[in-house]
């Protein structure tokens, strides 16, 4: 194996393996997007008895219904409709929202940063606390600490997030007055503050408006912590499982025999090896929070994509609902698959042979 040409072919084989992986990834991603669009098409056009009535309402005069049917191509065969739908979706055209009268895409671009900011804060809290808790639980397996982490995680898996949100609002906002009321900013700032990226924490820090930053912080801390708790439940459980796996390996025994300190063995050797699957888990929980924000945003009046979808639902605004579904679905799928690809690329054991 020390022969140089052998080394080169090994290198070639490796980069080919990566190429195959990336190629497979692109195909998978494309078919999954296609599947998502097929399902939303099915929901929007096939499930309702008459999609035109779903759009114009059942009190519209027959002439209007027929005109809309003609205009929207609903009298074409279903496969042609699907192709048109695909072309529109790929160009980001999800139709017009009945409620806001804007193109759905414009609305989504406006509200998406709020969801992104909330999910990011949630994941930071969840991973920042969940990983150390999971490590401690694994190292002290069976101890009181392990039991506590387990119970905290189990409750996180079992509690309805909207209910916990309501109760936390009652306690921390209404009774203790520690946090600000629902929304992203106080009304006073709502009209004076011009966002740049739409991530208020980033924008306020960037423009050095410290009072706005503090206000935005007081608004995001409660919903962020709540989402963080849910991702903590998942992350700490998985961390514990991965760490138990690593701590049983022989290299740990070898490191102990070498006389390394226990702290170094745990936090450096074992955790580093558990890090690869952990990246996947954290990415998955991030995607999950983007989705899970629907209920949280409703409780906290957080003007993100979740609240946008539920508001549209209440007004039977199908274009907006399906547009939002496609956007969240695409982000979800992309993160899902990217984390899978990352896992394959980072872990030598899973590389294509």
């Amino acid at each position: 194996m020390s022969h140089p040409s052998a080394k080169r072919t090994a290198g070639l084989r490796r980069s080919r393996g990566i190429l195959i992986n990336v190629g497979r990834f692109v195909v998978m991603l494309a078919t999954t997007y296609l599947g998502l669009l097929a399902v939303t098409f099915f929901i929007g056009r096939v499930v309702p008895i008459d999609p035109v009535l779903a759009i114009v309402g059942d009190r519209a005069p027959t002439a209007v219904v027929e005109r809309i049917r003609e205009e929207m191509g609903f009298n074409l065969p279903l496969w042609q409709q699907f192709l048109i739908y695909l072309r529109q979706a790929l160009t980001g055209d999800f139709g017009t929202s009945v409620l806001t009268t804007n193109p759905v895409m414009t609305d989504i671009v406006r509200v998406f940063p709020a969801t992104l900011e909330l999910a990011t804060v949630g994941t930071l809290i969840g991973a920042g606390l969940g990983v150390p808790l999971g490590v401690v639980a694994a190292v002290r397996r069976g101890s009181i600490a392990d039991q506590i982490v387990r119970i905290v995680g189990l409750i996180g898996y079992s509690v309805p997030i909207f209910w916990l949100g309501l109760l936390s609002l009652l306690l921390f906002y209404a009774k203790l007055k520690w946090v600000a009321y629902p929304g992203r900013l106080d009304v006073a700032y709502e009209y004076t503050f011009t966002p740049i990226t739409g991530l208020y924490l980033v924008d306020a820090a960037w423009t050095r408006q410290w009072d706005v930053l503090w206000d935005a912080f007081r608004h995001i801390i409660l919903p962020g912590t709540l989402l963080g708790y849910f991702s903590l439940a998942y992350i700490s459980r998985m961390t514990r499982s991965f760490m138990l796996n690593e701590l049983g390996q022989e290299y740990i025994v070898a490191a102990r025999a070498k006389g390394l300190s226990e702290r170094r063995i745990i936090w450096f050797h074992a955790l580093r090896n558990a890090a690869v699957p952990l990246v996947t888990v954290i990415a998955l929980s991030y995607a999950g929070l983007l989705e899970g924000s629907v209920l949280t945003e409703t409780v906290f009046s957080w003007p993100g994509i979740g609240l946008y979808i539920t508001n549209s639902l209440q007004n039977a605004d199908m274009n907006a609902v399906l547009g939002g579904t496609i956007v969240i679905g695409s982000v979800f799928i992309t993160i899902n698959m990217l984390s899978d690809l990352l896992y394959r690329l980072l872990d030598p054991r899973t590389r294509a042979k």
Partner: protein
Amino acid sequence: MTDPSSPAPISWRDWLLTAEPHSRRQASLGRAYVTWRRFSENRLAVTGLLIILALVLVAIFADLLAPHSATTGNLAGARLLPPGSPDFLLGTDDQGRDILSRLLVGSRITLAVVALVAIIAAPVGLLIGTVSGFAGGYVDAVLMRITDIFLAFPKLILALAFVAALGPGIENAVIAIALTSWPPYARLARAETLGVRNSDYIAAVRLMGASPARIVIRHIMPMCLSSLIVRVTLDMAGIILTAAGLGFLGLGAQPPLPEWGTMIASGRRFILDQWWVATMPGIAILIVSLGFNLLGDGLRDALDPRESGR
């Protein structure tokens, strides 16, 4: 020692734990007994089982247990009474209805939702997974691609969109949740199928002339059941939470049905002054999902000791 013609009087325990069972029934009962012993050592798991048994009993006898009507209240005399009021243990809601009675009757909806989703989604996943794993080739590739596509979807959002199109209601919520929850079962069943499809007993059955359908249904599906049951039990909590979430958004069960998520939504308006209206149903949801999670964890540990403690 134990001659079948003259069975020595042995204890039930020995009969169950014997290494040489005389009949299939004895062997399977013995296995069940070992599993039960492993399960019952786990105190949390037994707690979970008790919670679920209690849920089932409450759902069956809700009419007898409920002290008041779940749907009609006393608007004049009993609006928004706090918990601990005489005659109303958990208080009343804005329509003067007894919250305890509503919770008891609502347990039926919760149980029906999880049961229906399990009855729809688990067989679909089982069928797709076993057929895919047994057939292999193109069938496998296509079916698994479809499964992966559905697996990559965000479940709650998709369920929301489905219900939006179908119209709100508890039946449509069940359909929507079932449509989004079969893929993990298909993956699981396929993995189990791949594990047994090349084993000797399948070859023997095939030599005896069994059709592929018979092999899959009679000889492969039973092998997938135990891991499938564990997985379904672990998913129950998620199903309850999704159903409650849909109810909270006004898309699940419609008032005056005492669905717990819907009850939280209607208590939301009074949360500042009458906290109990929204709090009590949430506690019920928490207890029941916790029960399913504990039961699922315990079942997994008992059926698959390798994974125990993970």
